[in-house]
Every structure is written in structure tokens, then in C-alpha cells.
């Protein structure tokens, strides 16, 4: 029972999972911010499309999104390899969820902040980018860190469109050895080794932020 020999393969998979996480979080949060601005907009041609994207993204299970991107879109001429499809699908889901977190954060900024900026005569763009947004982002951080951890765990769904990430590599190893329990236990452990300290970090950051912001 030499499970150690499968560790390199699991680590390879972990690397792919982490890549997917980083891509979906970085692009997802950026798109999420744009969606949050769209949903908060007074311009209905911006607001409604953004709202539809957010609700669809939050309403449809991530797995279904991956299938639509990977198996569905080629029929309208959009063909992606499996890694790209996974990155796009996960980014979409992350964008939809993060947009609501960012919107909540931006809305939580005290009304007096905007009034003070207006009373000083700051133009609207700098009021938003320099006064409202930094404070809104800051209060979104705990929720966004939680979402990043969930996204990391969510990358295991990419297994279903045969991306060789952690879960997929675990499946391959176990189908050779039939040591399902051991290999999946190790896989779970690998996820936990990343996710649990991340959760601790996010709790710590949350406390720090709460202290620093009266």
C-alpha cells in the first residue's frame, strides 16, 4: 500500500486546481465589481442586463454552467479546451456571487461619507474611486475571502469536463489501485490543508478589519 507514489500526481492536480482558483477569483472579482456597478446604476440599460447576469450566475449550479460552456457553446461556434472552459465557467459563477458581496460592501459605506465628499466639492468620479470604493472593498473583504475558499473547493467540479485537476487525478489514481477510501481521504485532506488555514486567515483578517474601523 504505497500511497506515497500517488502524491506527485495529486500535487500536479492541486497545482491545476490552484491555477483555476486564481484565474476565477482574479477575473471573477473584476467582472463582479463591474456587475455590481451595473446593478447599482440608475441607467436601466446597464442595470437590467447586469441584474440578469448576476441572477443567472447565482441561480444556475456551477456544474451546469461548466457543461453549458464546454458542451453547449461549441454548437454556436464557441469552442474552448477543457481548462479554458472550466476557467470561464468558474469565473462566471464567481463574478455573479462576488458582485452581490461587493455591492453590499459599497452600500454599507456610511451616507455621511458621500455627503462629506459632495460638500467638499469633490467631483463624482473621485468621490467614488477614492472615498466610497476603498471603504466598500474593505468591508467586502471577509465575504470575498470566504468566496475564494469556496471557489478553490469548487474547482473540483472541473473534473466533470476532464480537466486534470486534483479531483480528476485522484480518480485516476484510485481507479488503478482501487484504494478509493485512502486516496479520496488524502484528496480531501489536501483540500483541507489549503482551505482550513485560509479560513483561519480570513477570520483573522476580519478581526483586524473590525478593530481598525470604528
Amino acid at each position: 500500500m504505497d500511497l506515497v507514489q500517488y502524491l506527485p500526481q495529486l500535487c500536479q492536480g492541486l497545482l491545476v486546481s490552484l491555477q483555476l482558483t486564481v484565474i476565477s477569483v482574479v477575473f471573477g472579482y473584476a467582472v463582479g465589481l463591474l456587475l455590481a456597478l451595473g446593478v447599482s446604476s440608475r441607467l436601466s440599460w446597464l442595470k437590467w442586463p447586469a441584474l440578469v447576469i448576476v441572477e443567472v450566475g447565482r441561480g444556475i449550479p456551477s456544474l451546469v454552467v461548466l457543461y453549458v460552456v464546454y458542451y453547449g457553446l461549441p454548437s454556436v461556434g464557441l469552442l474552448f479546451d477543457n481548462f479554458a472552459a472550466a476557467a470561464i465557467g468558474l469565473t462566471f459563477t464567481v463574478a455573479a456571487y462576488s458582485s452581490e458581496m461587493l455591492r453590499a460592501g459599497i452600500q454599507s459605506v456610511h451616507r455621511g461619507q458621500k455627503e462629506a465628499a459632495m460638500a467638499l466639492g469633490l467631483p463624482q468620479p473621485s468621490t467614488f474611486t477614492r472615498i466610497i470604493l476603498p471603504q466598500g472593498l474593505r468591508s467586502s473583504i471577509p465575504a470575498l475571502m470566504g468566496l475564494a475558499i469556496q471557489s478553490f473547493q469548487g474547482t473540483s467540479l472541473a473534473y466533470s469536463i476532464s480537466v486534470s485537476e486534483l479531483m480528476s487525478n485522484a480518480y485516476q489514481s484510485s481507479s488503478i489501485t482501487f484504494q478509493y477510501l485512502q486516496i479520496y481521504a488524502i484528496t480531501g485532506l489536501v483540500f483541507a490543508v489549503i482551505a482550513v488555514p485560509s479560513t483561519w486567515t480570513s477570520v483573522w483578517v476580519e478581526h483586524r478589519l473590525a478593530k481598525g474601523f470604528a
Partner: protein
Amino acid sequence: MSQQLITESQQVTSAGVTITNLSKSYGDNQVLDNISINVKPGSVTALIGPSGSGKSTLLRCINLLETPDEGTITVGTTTVEAGTRVSDRALLDLRRQVGMVFQSFNLFPHMSVLRNVAFPQEKILGRSREEAEERALTLLDRVGLREKAHQHPDRCSGGQQQRIAIVRALALNPRAMLFDEPTSALDPEVGLEVLAVMRELAAGGMTMIVVTHEMQFARDVSDHLVVMADGHIIEEGRPAEIMANPVQERTRRFLSAVLER
């Protein structure tokens, strides 16, 4: 020190503020009914009255944080007419001339005290960072808070925060200052620090409109007292006279309620 604070801040002369026939409603609720006030350049007007009388709304109409339904507002040479479309340029022009201090300070919590005072100068007056920060330090020094420059506002007491908020507004060379219950969120003794700075400003010739419950300040410092109730001006005149001999029953009741506290 008083002359220093004002000359340090005033490179332009104080402006008069004239409000003519100003009205505002929220739905069916008329909060301001045909208000007219004339504040002379360099004078101090105190607005008093029970809560809900419309005094804060009136103050917030002057720099258009609230949009009046009718009437005109003139600050210096800038006139804004309610009901007409106010261009962004006219709006910023008006707000640049009028500084405002809020009950809840509203300092920017993500910036140091120094940046709170310097950043608006850079954005609004186009000053360089060095110039803006030097000026910020000079003004902070005048109110005794230079040593707080590199701390964040949450490390400052309420009285200190309010003095910083005053300095932040002064740094932009306003031609008039609006104060919306600047000491109401402060302990009485801490409020005195803030009132001291306001006295200096008044002595230095700043045009000031102050919504306040501080009767002693209103009596000692203001040139003109305006008593409001239910969206109307019910009485106005010289502070000492009104306080000694209020004509209106409503004023009498309000004054005795405030003074007995």
C-alpha cells in the same frame, strides 16, 4: 491665534449668503415654507429651533446636499435657482465656496488625518501633494493637532475629529462655512474645544451659518439669531434680545426647554 487661523485659511474674502423664498417638501410633508435669510459677509447667523423644524434641511439646501423645490440661493457671486437644471460646474463652484461641518464629523476613515486635509486640496484646487500637505500641517498646527497628522481619524477623540473636519473644510479657502450641530455628538467639555475654534473663525471674519443647541455660543458669537419651527422662521433678530424677550410663545417654550437642560 484667531487672526492666524483665519488669515492662514482666507486668501479670499468672506462672501454673503442670501436665501430667497426657499421651499422644500418631501411628498406631502412641507419641511421648508418660503424661507428667506440674508447673511452678510463676515457675519455669524445661528439657526435654532426644535428638531424637525427644518433648520438642518435649510442648511443642507445651501450647498445643495438637498434639492430645494423653489427659491434661489446666492453665495458670493454664484446664484442657483431651484427648479432649473444646475450644471455640474455651477454645483461644484457653489460647493467650493461653501465649507460644511457635520454633526458626525464624516472624516474619511481610510485616510490619515493629513491625507484627509490634503487630498481634497489636491483634487479640488489642483495643489501639488507637497503644497497641500504643508498647508494641512500648518492648519492642523493652528488647532493644536499637528501631532495627529499621521494617525487615522479613529485614533482621535470626537473633539479632535471635529476640529480636523473644520480644518479640512478651511483648507479649501471657503468663503462661507456651514455648521450642522457641530457639537451635538460631543461631550460638553469636548464640545468647548470645537466651539473655541469656531469662535476664532468668527472673530477672523468668516461668514458662518450654524445650526446649534448651544445657546451660549449663539448669544456670544452670533450676530443674528433665526428661530425656526415647522418649516417657518417664527422669529429672528439680535440674539441677546430674542433670548431676553422672545416675542413668540413658541420661541419662549423652546428657549426655556433648552436652557433648563
